[in-house]
């Protein structure tokens, strides 16, 4: 067979279009990561508050986000808000909001876990050798909390990136959609193109996510000792 179909991927602008499509998903993920980093810390600290009502509300938020599949949330924000509240959100903005909310919730839980798993004695023994509370937090507690946090936080980031692939289902023109367009155009000339296009997209996600997870494992191992 002279034409293996993979050439389609590298024809003309196709590859760069695919990459741009990937960037669309990555942008959504980046926005979510940013808000998760900021909002998650706030939420996490709130979740350790002494006020039961606050803890409860946070818990409700977290569980609600978690129990409903993300795709359903995307539907709710994209189709639902439009119909019910007459707010017209573009698919991208709806995606930004949903993923940010999810990221904040998950990050909040991670932060809460890191903070509550701190051995109590750390603060006391730090103060016992004469450090102020602030100093203990700065030099002892926060570095340790960060170490417990980072691997899971990176894992969350990877999950965010992978899940942004769903936005194609609410019409965002990202890498999968671009791939489908490329396939449609070459359907007559090179019917096998779809195999290679999807294979490339598969590899693109892998190339983005794998190094991140490797780095996280490296960090974990480094800090284990």
């Amino acid at each position, binding site marked *: 067979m002279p034409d293996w179909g993979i050439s389609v991927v590298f024809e003309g602008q196709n590859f760069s279009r695919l990459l741009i499509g990937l960037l669309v998903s990555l942008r959504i993920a980046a926005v979510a990561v940013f808000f998760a980093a900021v909002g998650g810390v706030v939420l996490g600290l709130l979740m350790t508050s002494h006020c039961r009502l606050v803890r409860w509300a946070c818990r409700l938020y977290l569980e609600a986000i978690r129990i409903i*599949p993300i795709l359903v949330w995307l539907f709710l924000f994209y*189709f639902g808000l439009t119909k019910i509240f007459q707010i017209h959100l573009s698919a991208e903005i709806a995606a930004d909001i949903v993923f940010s909310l999810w990221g904040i919730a998950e990050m909040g839980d991670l932060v809460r876990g890191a903070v509550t798993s701190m051995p109590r004695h750390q603060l006391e023994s730090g103060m016992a050798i004469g450090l102020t509370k602030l100093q203990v937090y700065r030099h002892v507690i926060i570095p340790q909390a960060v170490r417990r946090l980072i691997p899971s936080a990176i894992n969350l980031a990877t999950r965010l990136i992978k899940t942004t692939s*769903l936005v194609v289902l609410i019409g965002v023109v990202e890498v999968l959609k671009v791939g489908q367009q490329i396939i449609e155009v070459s359907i007559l000339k090179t019917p096998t193109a779809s*195999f290679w296009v999807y294979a490339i997209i598969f590899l693109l996600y892998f190339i983005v996510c794998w190094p991140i997870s490797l780095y996280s494992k490296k960090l974990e191992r480094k800090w284990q000792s």
Partner: protein
Amino acid sequence: MDYAFVAASIPLFIKAAELTLVLAFWGISLSLAVGLACALVLYYRIRVFDKITVVYIELSRNTPLLIQLFFLYYGFAKIGIKFEAYTCAVFGLAFLGGSYMAEAFRAGLEAVTKSQIESGLSLGLTRSQLMRYIILPQAFAVAVPALGANAIFLLKETSVVSAIALADLMFVAKDLIGMYYKTTEVLLLLVLFYLALLLPLSMMLTYIERRVRHAGLGN
């Protein structure tokens, strides 16, 4: 709120929920089997297979289910291998879930202490008896929370199979919205049905977790 419409749509949603559950059931069961096999391969360091397993785990954990499904369903079709949507979905779920279950089992296996193993060996148990009576039960108890969380995760992931035209809850919802524009009613039903599927599962798993933990773990 058009209640008549809601009532009329319920049978459709029930059928879709059935499909979702059946898919999830097969996906979860297969991924448990795959996961255990992978974990054992890695635990016993079986040559060649352990490398394959590592490659598999990295590939499946770093790519989204949606892409895997598209690749299997649309991609292979054009080079002559046509998979049925149903098969694709189950395979995709098992492929993705297997690596997560493998990780859960691996952590469980490693949690069984060396002294426990030595204690079993000192009684004259063979390696396979050791695995069956001492290691696996304890590993399983440790792994249950993670296995349960993965099961719930996989049930939620079934929402993705609507993309390859399987009539699950998402597909039905999208269909109905497109046809009748009764967005609010459809979305309400969608959320309710997912809650109806996921909340009981979540509670059942918390119960199992507690029972397994209560089985006197800890010397």
